[in-house]
């Protein structure tokens, strides 16, 4: 009945489940691959895989566990491909994080609060964050560009994140109250 480029209702159902869970899944993948581009690749590959294997998923069974398992294997493949030894999570930590998957779902998007807080940063710090996230530069490259030591950039990034965090929490509290 279905044409080749048409997806069955079941496949669409599975894709909808994916969309429902993708927020938490993205954080989960990012926790294993902190490079946002690499993480995004894995999430998209996961989507492709669950679409291709949608027929293997039956309604009512644990979608989240299934999708997280697939994503995990994609990440492990990436580790393997990169022959990554440093700056990677151990298998047991990955398992722990997967078993605590619900934790990634807890808070919903905080993008509005984040936007407000970013506007409060000093110009120099703001520039550094832009280079880090908009351009996707590594701290060593940022250090070169703004003539700091790499160590100073790590410290500054860490400090900025901490202050953003507390700013966001304040914002959410005040808007919630």
């Amino acid at each position, binding site marked *: *009945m279905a044409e080749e*480029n048409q*997806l*069955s209702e079941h496949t*669409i159902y599975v*894709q*909808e489940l994916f*969309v*429902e*869970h*993708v*927020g938490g899944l*993205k*954080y989960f993948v990012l*926790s294993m691959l*902190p490079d*946002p581009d690499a993480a995004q690749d894995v*999430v998209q590959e996961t*989507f492709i895989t669950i*679409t*291709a294997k949608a027929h*293997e998923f*039956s309604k009512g*069974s*644990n979608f*989240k*566990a*299934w999708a997280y398992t697939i994503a995990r*294997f994609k990440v*492990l*493949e990436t580790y393997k491909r990169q022959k990554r*030894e*440093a*700056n*990677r*999570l*151990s*298998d047991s930590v990955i398992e*722990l*994080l997967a*078993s*605590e998957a619900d*934790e*990634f*779902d807890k808070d919903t*998007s*905080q*993008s509005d609060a*984040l*936007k407000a807080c970013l506007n409060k940063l000093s110009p120099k710090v703001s520039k550094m964050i832009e280079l*880090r*996230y908009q351009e996707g530069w590594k*701290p060593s490259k940022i250090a070169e560009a703004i003539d700091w030591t*790499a160590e100073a950039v*790590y410290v500054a990034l*860490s400090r900025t*994140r901490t202050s*953003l*965090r507390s700013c*966001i929490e304040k914002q959410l509290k005040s808007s919630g109250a």
Partner: protein
Amino acid sequence: MEEKELLKLIDKYIDEVLTIEETEEFNDLLECSKDFRDLFRKRIKLHGDLANHYDATNIPGITPFEKPKPENNKPIIFTILTAVAAIAVFAFVVINPQTSTEPQYFASIAFEDKARLISNEKLYSEKQLSKGTYKLESGMFELQMPNEVVLAIEAPTEFTIDNEKRISLASGKVSANVGEAGRGFEVITPDGKIIDLGTRFGVSVSDNGKTEAHVFEGEINVVASSKTTKLIQDQAILLEEGAQLKEMSADQSSFPLPGFPIKANISNLDFEEEKALLIGWPKKAAVWGGDHGEQVEEHLGVKPMEGSKMLQFVKPYAKGARDENQNVCQIWQVIDLKSFDDEIRRGGVTARLSAFFNTADNLTVDDNSFSISLVAFNGDIEEIKKYWDNQKEPLSEMLGSTSHNLKADLDSNTWEKSELNFQIPAGTDFLLLQLAVNAGAERKLEGHFADNIILDIATVPRRSVPIAKWNGEAGKWENKKNWKFGQLPKPQDTVRIQGKGEAIISEEVNLKQPLILATHNNSGGYLRISKKGVLNQSANGELLIGYNRGGKAKLLIEGTLRKRGRAFIGRNNAESSVVIDGGIWDSAGALVRMPQYNSKEDTQSLLEIKHGGKFMAKALEMINDESVVELVDGYIELERLTIGGDNGTAVVNHHAGILRVDNLKFGSVDSRYYITGVEAELWLKGDWSIDQLLSIENSTWLFQGEALKKDQLQVSQRKLGDKSYSVFKLQ
């Protein structure tokens, strides 16, 4: 560490600058502390939100993702590509809180062996498992699921119970026994899906995510990358990246196994068959015999418990009952378990026997006693006859027994149940099932009945077996490069020699577990014990030369093989040979069997002794098809030699050298002994004449293709220690 320091470590991870040492510290902290993980997750979220903020502002024109909705029964076109583009901004999607449901149990733990099960980070101690993800950290267990699905899972394994018909395996090993009702049961792995078609099978997912599926019995479908592959018994498959399929042979020993029933040949347990019970020693397996019993319909007011017939105990065996003072009637059936030696050797087979008894109304004296028994024997079926002839004599071949007594009430309307459990000892070849009644002083046996006998024999669940595998190239045993994973076999490993290349032992090697040559269907398996080489194998360690269909196995002994366990030359149609070329096979006290079970083609089991080689064993049984012994020049010393069994050809070609045996037997089908040279000497314990030798039951003696004549032989008496022998040779 202060929180600031901890955050700095997390940020270094996020900025991807951790060194290997810092990575270790980082992972240790994550593993040990939930607080640190919470801190980490918060930081990751911020990191993700930052990335998303700049990503989204950087790429204008993408609207937040919307769920596709079917419109008015029209199938919608929704390609993967548009979906992927759409999820570029997925972080804006609001997460729906998960709805919690009542726990519904899909599995229960039926057996466990030091199992440590983790769920949601906590030790899980319930016996029932609901939908969810579990991690078996250590040990193994057996899970029972609805619809006759039984799983064995061995640590380390992480799995998810999806529903009553499906589990997902993220890593580790599971095997499944699925009954007819469970047909269609599925195991999902990262690479594909295994669908049961009524069978026993195993699935493993390795640490790097590769899936293997092995079929032990029946059939499965393997679905990977939209391709379905059917696998049958003994086949296995490896799903690799890109879902390539690599075919292999199934290997039960590398999987944990649930308990499974052993389908031994047992006959007429309900006493319904049109077949009279034999009176006297039953002589062969799977027939009722013993004292005088008969199958009767409703009799003396007693109706069969099931069907139209039952067993009536009639009287003791007519010709000189074994104990005149006893008013006992015993009905026997011998059950042949030889072809299940793999399972029995592991010591993991149990039998559960139950029977119902009843007495007629005319019996008024209440001193009957019924009993059921199981007795395990090792060796020849004739050993059981000794037990029949005189039950009081202790027999070395009797490995164990158990029985249960029951006093039936005098109500002919009710049947009383007797039952027992028996752990079948390792090494058991035959099981004797005995039903008996002792009618007591009244001496009236008539009116005692039995019916509805049930004997279930099953294995207990077990773990996978540690294995060392030869990599298939010719070379020295002692060189670890010749072994899979570059590791020499440890004494407690089961060792498998496979492939085209010969393994050569040139030092002293000690093994405690089985050594198997030609483990897979159609595989080779070649081992040489060179002149300086010694192989010692302890009592648990069996030697299996040729194991599976179409295999070709050869053991060449120039040095010394010393073993205390049994050896099997050829089985399941593996073409197998042992050549003792000037070397020694010392198997004193243990059995060597040449068993071509289920022989279909002309596959041969050969034992050849030349250049003064020596073969010593407690017994050599050439019990199945196409077994050949070539004594070219050397020595064979045995307590018992059985040439031939109930099917197929067994031949001894005695060219030269000495064959010395205490007890010589021939099988009922085509069993031949050729004496071909003047230097051949047959030593037979005791005082034998040529006539007696030539008329041993079922024997065929030949010389140059014709029947050996009396006057072609000569006999003399020799003493060896305290034994005396009759020595036969050509004139």
